[in-house]
């Protein structure tokens, strides 16, 4: 693994991995890796708290769910699934604040079993009504009314990004809304400073900068989200938002009949919601 990282030219990552404890045969100690991941994700949650990710999401998801409720009589309860939920901060915050209403079931899915286990334990410890499931974003174990995620899209490279959206588009879901780091020139510098100030472990600090460097552009996101039966939209694209105020912004995919009610529910904020045809103008 260290050789692979070195071959990719990521010497810092190689050094971080080399410093982790190994068992026999030079294999990383799985318990130490789990502990490290839980530790780094706990630090990561601090960033979500400080950047008020929950409120940012509700600002858009509230109107989106209002549009869903208004447009048809969807199956109840509505179900929100957070893909790549990590420690499930977003889902647990939504459960604790009841911000989306009592008719929304809250579920988190993540590929990492240790994180899912810890998310479930944390939810139980605080008596929160939500669930966490171990599963893969490309073969989602839970059906949803709306799929969301935060800070996950930059993990998916090449054709995987469009494949991720396509899987949700071909499910019965009515919408998806995935937040990721806004790809601006400032992002890597900002991520460096902010992760340095707020995270302790070198893994978290390094990942913060690498993630900002890998963030997908607005155009790439809209292109990838254009799946059959889906209207791709971007909220607060570059050129329409101050990069210091919007560090994470979402790409949405909604069933076309939801666009009008969503825009109505958003009111004035709907100016910030653009499709591929408007994005070209914004950037110009």
């Amino acid at each position, binding site marked *: 693994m260290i050789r692979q990282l070195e071959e990719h030219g990521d010497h810092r990552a190689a050094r971080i991995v080399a410093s982790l404890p190994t068992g026999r045969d030079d294999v990383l100690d799985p318990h130490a890796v789990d502990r490290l991941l*839980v*530790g780094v*994700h*706990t*630090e990561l*949650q*601090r960033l979500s708290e*400080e*950047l*008020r990710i929950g*409120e*940012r999401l509700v*600002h858009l998801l509230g109107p989106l769910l209002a549009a869903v409720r208004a447009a048809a009589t969807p199956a109840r309860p509505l179900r929100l699934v957070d893909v790549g939920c990590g*420690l499930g*901060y977003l889902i*647990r*915050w939504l459960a*604790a604040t009841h911000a989306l209403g009592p008719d929304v079931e809250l579920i988190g899915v993540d590929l990492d079993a240790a994180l899912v286990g*810890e998310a479930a334990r*944390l939810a139980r*410890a*605080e008596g*929160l009504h939500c669930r966490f499931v171990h599963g893969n974003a490309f073969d989602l174990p839970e059906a949803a009314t709306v799929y969301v995620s935060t800070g996950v899209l930059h993990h998916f490279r090449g054709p995987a990004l469009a494949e991720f959206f396509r899987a949700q588009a071909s499910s019965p879901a009515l919408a998806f809304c995935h937040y990721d780091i806004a790809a601006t020139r400032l992002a890597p510098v*900002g991520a460096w*400073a*902010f992760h*340095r*100030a*707020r*995270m*302790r472990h070198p893994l978290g600090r390094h990942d913060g900068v690498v993630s900002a460097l890998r963030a997908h552009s607005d155009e790439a996101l809209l292109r990838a989200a254009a799946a059959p039966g889906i209207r791709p939209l971007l909220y607060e694209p570059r050129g329409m938002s*101050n990069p*210091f*105020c*919007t*560090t994470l912004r979402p790409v949405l995919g909604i069933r076309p009949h939801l666009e009008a009610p969503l825009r109505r529910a958003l009111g004035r904020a709907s100016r910030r919601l653009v499709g591929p045809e408007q994005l070209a103008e914004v950037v110009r």
Partner: protein
Amino acid sequence: MTPAAPLVTLGLVDAAFSGFRAYAGRDARIRKRAAIVRSALRGLAVGAVLLLAPAVTAGTVLLTADDPALAYAALAAGGAGYLRPLAVYATTVVLSLAAYFVLPFRVSTLAMVVGLGPLTLLRPLAIVAACLGALLNGGGFTSLLVGSVAGGAVLCVEPIVHRRWYASVVH
């Protein structure tokens, strides 16, 4: 008025914030007000003990001086010079905090990203500026000594609280 009272107050408030920072990122629960208050009190307690170091240093300077009145005047001048950059820093922090808590999430993100985050990184620089202020205001070597000890003490609160109480994730 001697600058001692505002300096001690600043030091203690800073210690409480350091206690919070030592804890932040170690507790993934959602409701944690009590734990936050506890961490601030831990910072305050550690800070109160550590701030004895500059107090003792200043006391020693005064007791061993040939001319205590002159030594006192130098320390007072140095303290006033030390206070000025810190007052600017503290005002910026207070304004950023107010913006963070009061304003809607977009502006609050701005306050965090360009205010509170970088301000944490700038803490050692604020201490250096304060020491320079002490020198420039005619505080002399003794003020520099007391100021450096105080700066060191204040910067030590966060790592000590972190190592003592928050070395691993809170359960």
